[in-house]
């Protein structure tokens, strides 16, 4: 009954206030969340947390279906976006990969033409981790000293090749003037276990992927690649909290912020009212208790970007990646 009343009211209002009607676009069938990662991966968890925040708080009452299109490091998701333009029932979840992947590989989608940015909901900081027992490294100075003594012998693990992790590793090499060997694994957690088992010396990782190893004493965070220390002061391990971990600049490694945005996209040419609707919806999701708990657990940085602000961020972030890729000789067509 109330539902009918609301619909009737909305109907009347749509005549009275055409501008307000834009905000009244409502999905009336299931919405698909496409995650650019396999089940259990970071982006998959991100999409599913948003799903749970929306459905638990009844922010979105039509069913939400999460699908995974992880092929080609997630490129499959954005190619899929290209094949469904104007569709207001598909949201695409990723990281900076949406605009960084085409820099290195020949892909059939163009991020500026085939995707509509909605929002970045949270940022994952990166940390430098070592196994204190097997490597004997206790801090950034020790790490740099050991790398200088053994050029090319220090093994740093990360997720996949020519993406965020390897990029960050090359930044460390350039900043510290050392030569490291990068070893790509399928996922960040796999690299973390290799460090914990003492098979490789270090890895770069989001805090969430290594926090359990830290508690178990087989991994130790050296520094965080951020402009300021993380805020959380809850003691985690060794009597230390995230806040006690120095920034890399403080610790003597001159690399400023290197956070990974968790982004949401729509296909090209979607109705503007649908875009407005999802922009609002996702902002609400980011404020829901489920999402806040997720961000806190992963020691993520809670910052929401939408609209022009998000577009400006994308432009600047893509340019900085293009610059780093150019330096590493990874840009497509320049190999």
């Amino acid at each position, binding site marked *: 009954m109330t539902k009918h009343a609301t619909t009737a009211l909305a109907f009347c209002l749509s005549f009275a206030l055409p501008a307000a009607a834009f905000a009244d676009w409502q999905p009336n069938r299931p919405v698909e969340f496409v995650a650019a990662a*396999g*089940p*259990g*991966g970071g982006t*998959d*968890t991100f999409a*599913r*947390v948003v*799903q*749970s925040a929306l*459905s*638990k708080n009844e922010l979105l009452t039509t069913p*939400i279906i*999460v*699908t*995974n*299109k*992880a*092929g*080609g*490091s997630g*490129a*499959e998701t954005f*190619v899929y976006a290209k094949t469904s333009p104007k569709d207001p029932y598909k949201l695409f979840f990723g990281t900076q990969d949406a605009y960084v992947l085409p820099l*290195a*590989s*020949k*892909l*059939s989608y163009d991020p500026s033409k085939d995707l509509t940015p909605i929002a970045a909901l949270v940022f994952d900081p990166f940390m430098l981790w070592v196994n204190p027992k097997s490597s004997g490294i206790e801090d950034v100075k020790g790490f740099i000293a050991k790398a200088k003594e053994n050029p*090319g*012998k220090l*093994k740093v693990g990360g997720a*996949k*090749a*020519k*993406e965020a992790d*390897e990029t960050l590793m090359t930044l460390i090499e350039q900043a510290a003037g050392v030569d490291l*060997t990068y*070893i*790509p*694994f*399928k996922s960040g*957690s*796999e690299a*973390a*276990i*290799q460090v*914990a*088992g003492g*098979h*490789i010396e270090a890895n770069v990782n989001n805090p*969430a992927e290594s926090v*359990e*190893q830290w*508690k*178990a004493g*087989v991994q130790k965070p050296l520094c965080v690649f951020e402009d300021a220390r993380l805020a959380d002061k809850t003691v985690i391990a060794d009597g230390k909290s995230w806040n006690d971990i120095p920034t890399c600049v403080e610790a003597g490694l001159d690399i400023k912020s290197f956070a990974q945005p968790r982004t949401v996209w729509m296909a090209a040419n979607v109705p503007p009212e649908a875009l407005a609707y999802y922009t609002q919806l996702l902002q609400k999701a980011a404020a829901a208790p489920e999402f806040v*708990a*997720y961000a806190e*657990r992963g020691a993520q940085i809670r910052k929401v970007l939408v609209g022009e602000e998000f577009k400006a961020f994308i432009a600047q972030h893509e340019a900085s990646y293009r610059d780093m890729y150019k330096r590493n000789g990874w840009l497509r067509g320049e190999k």
Partner: protein
Amino acid sequence: MGNFGQLMDGFAVALTAHHVLIMIVGVLLGLVVGVLPGLGAPNGVSLLLPLTFTMDPISAIILLTSMYWGALFGGSTTSILFNIPGEPSSVATTFDGYPMAKQGQAVRALSLAFSSAGIGALTGVIVITLLSGWVAQFAMRFGAAEYFAVYFMAFASFIGMAGGSPFKTLVAMMLGFAAATVGMDTISGESRLTFEFDELIGGISFLIAVIGLFGLGELLLTMEEGLKFEGVKAKLDLRTIFRTVAEVPRYWATLVRSALIGCWMGITPGGPTAASFMSYALGRRFSRRGRHFGKGEPEGIIAPETADHSAGSCALLPMLALGIPGSATSAVMMGGLMIWGLSPGPMLFTTQPDFVWGLIASMYMGNIIAVVLVLATVPLFAYILKAPFTVVGPMITVVCVIGAYTVASHTFDIWLALLFGLAGYVFKKLDYPLAPFVLAMVLGDKAEDAFRQAMLTSDGSPAIFFSNGLVSTMMGLGIFLLLLPAITALAGRIRSGAHKAEAA
């Protein structure tokens, strides 16, 4: 005996009416997704995941794991009845299960598969109960070189044990490796063998290949042989089920060997699919009736099924203790764990004992419930075979096509499955074995990654594969398995040579 006390506490958590009901529902749902090829356990579990957001974590994981058990059992059903593996890990079950069903013994084949699978699963859970603390430590010792050694053993046992021509085995395996390299390469970040098809960038799904090679390929053969389906003569005798279950303990040697292989492959990164193949290959080698494998031999069903399920159970342990999923399904469950607010890792056992031990206790009960339920469905499934081929044939085609589409909702995959169907037919006609192709496709890219990671770690020195006791033992065993047929052949020739010499 601390583990035992905690297990009892776990039973107190799992043994409520509410949880038992959840287990039954989970197993039934799992059976459905397991029977449909392409849908499979990983997809099924991820479809169910949103439902669990409002449940408490222990009920949620019981639901998901019960569904997993159900799907593992369901996967064997279509393998046996139609030669279409519902799950990647039940491919090896087709080798003897399908011939046995074709001879009109579908009930026996299904009962054998289910009861040995149940025994395998329970062995796996017992291993988890006893060794949970130790396994996490042990799994940490696996670096890239050790990973490669595990895969190498699986390949070696297959080349060494294959019937038929070793060269044909090798050719099939190489083709499998080639198919596994399609898509984005982990180590270099480049796409390979995609020919600029967007559809190929994610690689060729193993399930598509299996649906085509086995399901459609077999269908083509059956059609050529004259549209006959021997299953028609199948007698439906309920007592067969009980007789078969009672028959299982006779194969204790196969059961023990397969369960050991399964647990080993589940704890190390091999996973259930590799475990079932390896167990089948070793079964053929070491069983007294090994020569009859492939013609509907009971041990040819028991070996892969037992290993598959013990590996499936054991694969949950690395997921809980290290946050490294041992199979696609446990990867989905791990995602669930994180959404419910639990972090898998070495500390989970101490911070969440109720959750961990409740889960382990539910694995005992979930598997027992699953065995009872699937045995009850045997007559129903066997009845399907009574339908004439003109009905069953088109039905299989539809199931295959839908299955190929469901894997990733790509229409391209349907064409790919049809292509693999033709390839499967050609393979069979020319007497090239399919199993090595499938094995190489499943493990090929993982083995390649591990090999190249190990080489990067050692700066290109192969000595890393013999750098410690663990990896040397595994590589040594692998090489021994690889050379075993050559050694036996040589020994045989020397012996017969000696005979000739004596005769002369």
